[in-house]
């Protein structure tokens, strides 16, 4: 195949699959549309109809431009997978922001895109104004975004809309979900969605009943239960009201959300293994070991440091442990006011939060951060290196780690884990530097930068409609990079730079 034909085929493949992902988001917009119709919210109905029309036209246009044939489908390469994932996320963010813009609950396109990216990446930071009075339809849309974003939008669309999925695994990995529960991607995606939907039923029911018990009206309690479950399970942090979890003033509501956001931060592979009867996996898996150790150590230190500012153990559990777990699982529910972190928790409290926000939850879960698996792998590699130093040179020992099955601790695994951690730390450092450049205190800047990089959603008070536009743009990029774990975005940038270079060379000739 000659060069120009390969380039043409590359574009066709990318357009075709991206088009189907966009059709997927158009179909999802019917959920808030129906909600608005049922509750007779006529303005949101028109907002969603317009959004669906624009999204569908663009989706079909891309599919037609792609016009892929059966022969071309087998040409999906790794680069296509990564580029489709990264490009889809950018386009989906812009298209999903249309209902926000039309509702006039956001001040600008930038604020609308910020909220959508925050939802898709399951971060949970909010710039939407007057959250307590927005329509039920828009609230539904916010929580659909965060729920679908957690499971993987690209995976969802391609698994259910495209018949031929021979190249889908590459796109799936591009979305930072490199797990094969069964040999085909369709089967894996269906298992992920089965687990999520079963938990959606159980979790919504539990929070609905609890909502009624704490005094909400049945219909209101149902929607609060549904929205809070969607945010808990996808470790999103969105809530249907501006006071977040504080709105409920309920210990039982907080305990239920703790259980679901911890479960949401666990690997889908682990859920599947446990549901298949491999119960010991929860104790043997390197990720759960890593999570339980870091969460327990961080919680203990936080309780010791902050025990003086709260009167009793129940208050400490609700204010300190809850927020540490919410940060560690990258959920972002908070039952203290944003400024309390800065004014009451002090530097040590903020440091603990920054560390756990950066570590995050499990790989192939709904959580963000650089993940417990990588922390475990790096820790094991340090231990194995020290052991090798102390043992005889003749003694050759193979070190392993357990993650669903036993893996040999190879240099390549350690290197890729270290690389991703370095990328996260760089993104975090740049975010902190930008915050301090705009005059925010160092600790506050670090807290907010860790929150966006780890897709957490806790705020110390920086994220507001009045913050500099440059910071909003950087936070959107950091959320995007953190969620896709860098590689897809780098592939997209590399692809465009390569294209521009070739174009420049042609012009020069």
């Amino acid at each position, binding site marked *: 195949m000659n060069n120009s034909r390969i380039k043409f085929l590359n574009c066709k493949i990318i357009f075709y699959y991206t088009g189907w992902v966009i059709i997927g988001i158009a179909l999802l917009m019917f959920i808030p549309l129906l909600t608005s119709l049922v509750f007779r919210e006529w303005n949101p109905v028109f907002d969603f109809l317009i959004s669906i029309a624009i999204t569908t036209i663009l989706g079909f246009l891309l599919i037609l431009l792609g016009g892929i044939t059966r022969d071309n489908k087998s040409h999906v390469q790794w680069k296509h997978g990564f580029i489709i994932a990264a490009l889809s996320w950018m386009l989906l963010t812009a298209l999903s922001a249309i209902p926000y813009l039309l509702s006039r609950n956001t001040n600008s396109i930038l604020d609308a895109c910020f909220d959508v990216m925050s939802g898709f990446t399951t971060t949970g930071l909010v710039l939407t104004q007057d959250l307590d009075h927005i329509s039920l339809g828009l609230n539904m849309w916010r929580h659909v975004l965060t729920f679908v974003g957690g499971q993987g939008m690209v995976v969802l669309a391609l698994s259910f809309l495209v018949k031929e999925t021979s190249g889908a695994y590459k796109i799936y990995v591009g979305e930072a979900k490199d797990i094969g529960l069964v040999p085909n991607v369709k089967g894996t995606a269906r298992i992920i969605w089965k687990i999520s939907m*079963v*938990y959606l039923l*159980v979790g919504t029911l539990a929070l609905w009943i609890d909502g009624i018990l704490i005094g909400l009206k049945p219909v209101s309690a149902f929607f609060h239960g549904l929205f809070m479950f969607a945010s808990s399970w996808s470790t999103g942090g969105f809530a249907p009201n501006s006071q977040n979890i504080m709105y409920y003033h309920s210990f039982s509501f907080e*305990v239920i959300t*703790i*259980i679901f956001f*911890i*479960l949401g931060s*666990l690997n889908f592979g682990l*859920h599947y293994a*446990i*549901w*298949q*009867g491999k*119960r010991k996996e*929860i104790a043997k898996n390197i990720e759960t070991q890593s999570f*339980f150790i870091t*969460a*327990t150590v961080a*919680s*203990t230190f936080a*309780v*010791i440091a902050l*025990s003086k500012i709260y009167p*009793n*153990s129940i208050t*400490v*559990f609700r204010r*300190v*442990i809850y927020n540490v*777990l919410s940060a560690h699982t990258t959920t972002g529910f908070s039952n203290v006011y944003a400024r309390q972190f800065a004014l009451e928790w002090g530097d040590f409290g903020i440091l603990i939060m920054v560390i756990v926000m950066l570590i995050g939850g499990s790989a192939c879960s709904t959580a963000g951060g650089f993940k417990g698996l990588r922390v475990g792998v790096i820790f094991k590699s340090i231990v194995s290196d020290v052991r090798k130093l102390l043992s005889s040179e003749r003694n050759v020992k193979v070190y392993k780690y357990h993650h669903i099955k036993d893996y040999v601790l190879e240099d390549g695994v350690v290197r890729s884990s270290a690389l991703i951690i370095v990328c996260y730390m760089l993104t975090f450092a740049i975010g902190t530097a930008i915050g301090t450049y705009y005059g925010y205190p160092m600790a506050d800047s670090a807290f907010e930068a860790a929150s966006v990089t780890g897709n957490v959603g806790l705020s110390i008070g920086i994220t507001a409609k009045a913050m500099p536009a440059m910071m909003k743009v950087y936070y959107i990029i950091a959320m995007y990079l953190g969620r896709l774990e860098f590689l897809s975005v780098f592939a997209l940038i590399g692809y465009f730079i390569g294209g521009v270079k070739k174009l420049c060379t042609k012009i020069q000739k």
Partner: protein
Amino acid sequence: MRAKNVIKDILGLFFELISISIYSAFLFLITWLLMR
């Protein structure tokens, strides 16, 4: 076979819910001990 799979799934679900509840209770116990 289908019924067996459903039972397996439900048992797995309860196992997960109970495990995480026990862990949350363990963290509460630590808090209570440290606050004494």
